[in-house]
């Protein structure tokens, strides 16, 4: 039907068409596959390219820590509760069947594939450390940040990293020391001896001390403010004092504490009821509440309503233990002002009343206090006692006692003073950030105290239980990590 010419013409046409089609598709396919980053996120490069976004990275950590207790991720905020349960500060409400509360309370933490309780702080602090590490790396890149902002943020990142490692090393013992953001490095890290971790904490805090602003800064990091919600040089010094104390470096502990105490920005509040108010004179670093309608979650959880403790572990699960109540000397104003009670069908439940505003929607008057001056007095008292500066130590401890309406201490030698200081810490710093649990371990009294207390709580004490277990998933995902003994 067709001549061969027509056929060839058709074939040519066909081949040309085919080639055009192929070339078009090939080039189009290549170009098509590239997408812009989502508008809901910013890339790490741009995050550290401007003052506001770089500051937002650190602000993100404060926001998260200050956030609600009911989020499953952020367990750092549970420290006052969990460490208080582990130690002798709280009694768990008898109807609580929640494993979390019960196992912390009975010092029977578990780390196994189908039940793991005790790894909470490990799991919540390392992500913060990753953010700090990323921030340090990002801020160290040549960037367009205002030098003052960059300096402050580097200081904040190092300060926060030191804070997190401080709690890790005190809750878990030896811990991996992740200082960068490379997961290939970090996933293979073994647990570093705690001495090494402390060394790093000191390095970070010294660096933070020189980087952080002496003044409180606002969200722009360029102007000062009366809001004590961002770490300052004093915060770094205060934490440094604590870390030196924990390390037994009495000279430096005393020096650092002195630096804070002599800072005119801080003074002990004479009214005990002012100690946890926002931006009070004693506050060195506080966290601004970030939940709409809330003051502090501490008030919400600890204050027992007229209906009594709740069967729900996340509502009002605990009240102050007999041990804690018995620790107060007669006429201690802290027993009056910082402890309150609810009487529920003839049972009296005493609860911590440092934070007093639990009603939702109340004006915000209280901030969660992380570092406060009273602790610095007690740090210096202890450091001075260890150096046999008895009088100086007595002055410091009496500063705290007289504020509580108590007579001067009668302890006058090193050993009785150390006991007095430990006791003073118990009644001054109770249910705050696990001070009691850490002090027991630091002072070496944990076995003697807990072997009495744990059976009262329905558990069995073993010296292994002073260290929380590593989360099972990390043992699985990083075989070089070894579990704490006993678990």
């Amino acid at each position, binding site marked *: 039907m067709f001549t061969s010419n027509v056929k060839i013409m058709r074939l040519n046409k066909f081949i040309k*068409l085919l080639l055009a089609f*192929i070339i078009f*598709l*090939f080039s189009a*396919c*290549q170009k098509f*596959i*590239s*997408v812009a*980053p*989502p*508008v*809901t*996120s*910013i*890339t*790490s490069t741009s*995050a550290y390219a401007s003052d506001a976004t770089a500051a*937002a990275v650190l*602000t*993100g*950590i404060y*926001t*998260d820590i*200050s*956030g*609600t207790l009911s*989020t499953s991720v952020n367990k750092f905020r549970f420290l006052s509760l969990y460490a208080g349960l582990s130690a002798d500060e709280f009694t768990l409400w008898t109807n609580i069947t929640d494993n979390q509360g*019960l196992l912390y309370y009975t010092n029977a933490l578990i780390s196994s*594939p*189908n039940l793991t309780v005790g790894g909470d702080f490990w799991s919540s602090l*390392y*992500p913060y450390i*990753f953010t700090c590490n990323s921030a340090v790396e990002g801020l160290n890149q040549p960037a367009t940040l205002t030098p003052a902002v960059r300096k402050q943020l580097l200081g904040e990142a190092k300060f926060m990293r030191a804070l997190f490692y401080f709690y890790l090393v005190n809750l878990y013992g030896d811990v991996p020391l992740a200082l960068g953001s490379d*997961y290939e490095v970090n*996933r293979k*890290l073994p647990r570093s001896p705690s001495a090494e971790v402390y060394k790093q904490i000191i390095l970070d805090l010294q660096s933070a001390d020189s980087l952080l602003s002496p003044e409180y800064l*606002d*969200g722009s990091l360029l102007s000062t403010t009366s809001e004590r*919600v961002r770490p300052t040089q004093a915060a770094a010094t205060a934490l440094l004092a604590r870390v030196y104390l924990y390390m037994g470096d009495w000279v430096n502990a005393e020096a650092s504490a002195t630096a804070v105490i002599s800072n005119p920005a801080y003074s002990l509040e004479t009214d005990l009821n002012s100690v946890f108010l926002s931006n009070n004179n004693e506050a060195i670093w506080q966290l*601004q*509440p*970030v939940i*709409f309608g809330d003051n502090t979650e501490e008030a*919400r959880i600890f204050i027992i*309503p007229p*209906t*009594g403790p*709740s069967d729900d572990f996340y509502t009002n699960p605990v009240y102050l233990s007999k041990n804690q109540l018995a620790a107060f000397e007669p006429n201690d104003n802290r027993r009056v002002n910082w402890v309150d009670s609810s009487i529920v069908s003839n049972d009296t439940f005493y609860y911590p009343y440092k934070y007093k505003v*639990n009603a*939702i*929607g109340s004006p915000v008057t209280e901030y969660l206090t992380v570092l406060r001056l009273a602790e610095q007095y007690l740090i210096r008292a202890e450091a001075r006692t260890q150096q046999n500066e008895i009088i100086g130590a007595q002055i410091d401890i009496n500063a705290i006692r007289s504020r509580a309406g108590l007579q001067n201490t009668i302890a006058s030698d090193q050993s009785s003073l150390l006991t007095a200081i430990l006791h003073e810490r118990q009644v001054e710093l109770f249910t705050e950030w696990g001070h009691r649990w850490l002090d027991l371990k630091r002072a070496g009294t944990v076995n003697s105290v807990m072997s009495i207390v744990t059976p009262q709580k*329905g558990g069995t004490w073993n010296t292994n239980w002073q260290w929380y277990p590593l989360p099972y*998933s*990390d043992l*699985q*995902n*990083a*075989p070089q*990590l070894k579990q704490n003994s006993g678990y």
Partner: protein
Amino acid sequence: MTAAFSNNKESFKDSLLITKSYCKAMQLTDIKFSLSRAGSHLTPKLIRVMRLTTVLLLTACLHVSAKIEGQTVTLDFTNVPIQKVIDEASKQSGISIIYNETLFAGLSPVTVKLKDATIQDVLKACLKDQPFIYSFEGNLIVIKKEASSSAGLKPADSLASSSLPPPIDIRGRVSDSLGNPLAGASVSIKGSKRGTTTDANGNFTLVAVKDNTTLIISYTGYSSKQFKTGGKGEIAIFLNKSNSPLDEIQVIAYGTTTQRFSTGNISTVQAADIAKQPVNNPLLALEGRVPGLFITQGNGVPGSSVTVQIQGQNSLINGNNPFYVVDGVPYFAEMLSTFSSGFSNEVLGGNSGTNSSSVGSPLNFINPADIESITVLKDADATAIYGSRAANGAIIITTKKGKAGPTQVQIGLQTGWGTPASKLKMMNTEQYLTMRHEALKNDNDIPNSSRDYDILGLYGWDTTRSTDWQKVLIGGTAHFNNINATVSGGTGQTQFIVGGTYQNETSVFPGNFADKRGAIHFNINTTSPNQRFKFQFSGSYMNDDNHLPRHDLTATALSLAPTAPLLYNPDGTLNWALKNTGSSSWNNPLAYTIASFESKTDNLISSSQMSYRLLSGLDISANFGYAKLVSNTYIPYPLNFNAPQNIPYSLRIADYSYNTTSTWLIEPQLNYKKAFDFSKLELLLGGTFQQNTSEGQALEGTGYNSDVVLPDIRSASSISATSSLDLTYRYSAFFGRINYIVKDKFIFDLSGRRDGSSRFGTDNQFHNFGALGIAWIFSEEKFIRNNLTFLSFGKLRASYGTTGSDQIGDYTYLNLYNPVAISPIVPYQGQLGIEPLSLPNPHLQWEETKKLQGGLELGFIKDRIFLVANYIVNRTSNQLLYFPLPIVTGFTSISSNLPATVQNTAWELVLNTVNIKSGDFIWKTNFNITIPNNKLVAYPDLATSPYADIYTIGKPINITKAFHFLGVDPATGIYEFADHTGHATKTPDYTVDRTVDINNFPSFYGGLLNTFNYKGFELDIFFQFTDRYQPNTFGGIPGGTPGLRRLNQPVTVLGRWEKQGDITSIQRFSTMLSPNAPSLIEQYGDLQSSDAGITSSFYVRLKNISLSYQVPVKFMQEHHLQSCQLFIHAQNLLTFTNFNGLDPETGNGVLPPMKVVTVGIQLGL
């Protein structure tokens, strides 16, 4: 019955005319009528053909003629137009004569005088010396211009029979029974090796053929025909659609085929089977019907998630979704989720796919009534053309298309009732009290009013009442109502269908809950008169309004003590059963019905295909597709959702989320078809450009002053955005396919493609994939045909190919920071914080799956027994997953490629038989079974990897490592397990003592369908069966040590240890938390992780019974109905199982699948 052809390629613009002997010219739309008069025996077949034909008809104005054999005519005309003579001859003889109406234009009038002449004589006389030829085939005579102008008129001689005919050239044309040309039909000479295939217009020529030979003409989807040339040089052959299921059209990627000529592993479920099942989600209609396809329903709640796996789990952890295509448009496999975990809506159940936080299934928003067929593509040959997107197989949903014919209206009404298909026998109050008191006694304890009020009858707990909480909380009857109407019709050139459905399904939960949906569907097809341009447009839209309790109350129903308080106070408010302290003694389950879940979803799917014939056999075409799923969810938390003691510390909250997912697609294609002697070639070259965008935000309002204003976000005193989403995914591909069929016996199918995905870093965006499928229809071989006459069909096929997967999150190669998610947030120092989102991995690559599959298809006794057997070996490597990391790295995982290889093998068997076919009675059986086997083939350094504890080389990838349960220690009544040395222990060690590997994949599954037809009755009985391991009552909910306060238990635990020496498998009752006795919680937990907690559960479910009755024709005629069918459908009617739990399919904690019975009527007007 229309005809449309020409042997001149340029003459398409001339429309054709068919005269009808005794009636006026009729429009195509009247075909059915005319046919039923002219030859009623043809009607059903032709109507069916019309339904199945998607090729557009050629002409606008056609006339039809019917056939009556052996008629003679008497004519007496002088100087009249030829047309008139022919019309008269046709009229007298009753023989249809087809010709182009302009054919005789300009010809001089003729004079014809004949008596009792045959029609051949008439034509001979009329067309003498004219450039026309005609052919005579059965019922039709076709007159046309002669192909070659040089050729003279031959018919007169060729029609005359001759005893010794010389070799002749045979020219012919092959059409379907409607006259549409069949391109690529094979024409061979019987008893010789010669043959040819038809060209694009259905024409063929065989040169120098012995006269009186027999031609064998065959074409995909049609019954082959033998044709004796009988000296005719010009012939027209009309093939009828085949009745064999082998020749049913199967939709494949970018085309169609039939089971006969398919080289791939493909299964199809037709509309009729879907329509018999009252389901919301079309996927549920596939359960048990397709070998290799394993479907599990998340729960029985309308709108819930469905897990789909084709030929096993290829990817270790994520990315096992098949590729869904609706009318050529890629469809969403998962719903979006922008809710933070605290406010997710758990009632619909989670997905097991990439996005584990998503709930529900997007397939819920496709109306089953609009679906024409669902095709499941399984092997590489079938799926390779879809490339990486179809690494886990493809599910192609084809919606109903318009068909030519008179306008028809179909109306369906259906109403039904649903209840949960399973129930667990729980303790009554007497048994419960026995258990609780015994537990206290075992623990050396006495009832304490502060915690044992459930057995003391305090605060509204009542030991004299025995509530069946399953009856109260999930025992309602769901009402199911469905109305459906479609209008369809069209001419040869343009066809349409428009359908609408409204459905309302209430829930079994207490309260006023329902899933309401309205859907419309339409399709239009059109073709240009010259048939070069074709256009098809389809659209479906659904609006779904789902209102449910936020929480599936099933788990609560199974755990509430039978002594638990009344739900309501006498004044109608929720009863919180306050203790004397003023705090509630229980969580009233109906709080979740106050904090309800309302989801409104709009789903639009539209697609269009257009093609243009550039040259003969060469078409350029493009598919355009757009789909958009918009879902708005509203979850209120009114103040009285909270227990009274919590109200002072609670705010009114409402969550609103708005999600939009859309996808668009452009696919330019070139198609080339060429028929050679004995072989056919099809080439396809194409490209895909696809973009998916997902946008969403979730807002949370707090602090409303009244419950009434919760729906309005403006009434909130604080509003925060709890999440936001913006994802873009782009995919492009360049692909080609060659399909070559030799002698209708050997089939080769080769495809290759280059895929690009935006999910990878720039170095790894592109990857090449390819597949080869071959098939040999050995029953076409002479020696088999002659020697094995009982074998009506036999085909061997094999395919091998590679596909890939990019099913991992978007942007995982980027290092991103997101705002800190806290709600309702007060910005810290007025600033919103940001935090790292995940660990980036710029080195991600494609996951690759190699599929090797072989199949054997055998038909016996005219295909009355038909067997299909497939064996598959699929291997997936370079696993794309979220690799677990220690949290020390800051995150628990990183998106990563893992050098592990997973192998899935399976036997898939299908046996279809027609057991009885006598008179009006037909009994057919369809049986399918799949026996899968999954194992981890390779994993370098598994022992030192995070997966050391999870996987074992050579074992399936979802084994559970479990303790071996030994029983209860007769001395103490405590569970005992075997340690790794085989000794009994009460405290097994997780690291070494989990010695049993339990395979959680099904060991086999399938279905059995029996269909009985008798006169107007049709009865379908469909059983579905599965054998797999499931967590039983100990491994799932109800959980907790029997004896624990306020927790009911199944009656099976009554066989517990009571006293020393008891031999039993249930440990002693314990309140678990008594200071006076050791806690048995650890042993109870170990039991759940033992081979007593996860047990083999085989079940056979009477998945569907459908009885329908077609009303007799007489009745319909009296009531002017085209069709009228009455039916009863029942889903999940009975379940036979050894499972010791609530339901063997959905497990324990969730609402079982619904047992639904519906009655209805389907009317055709």
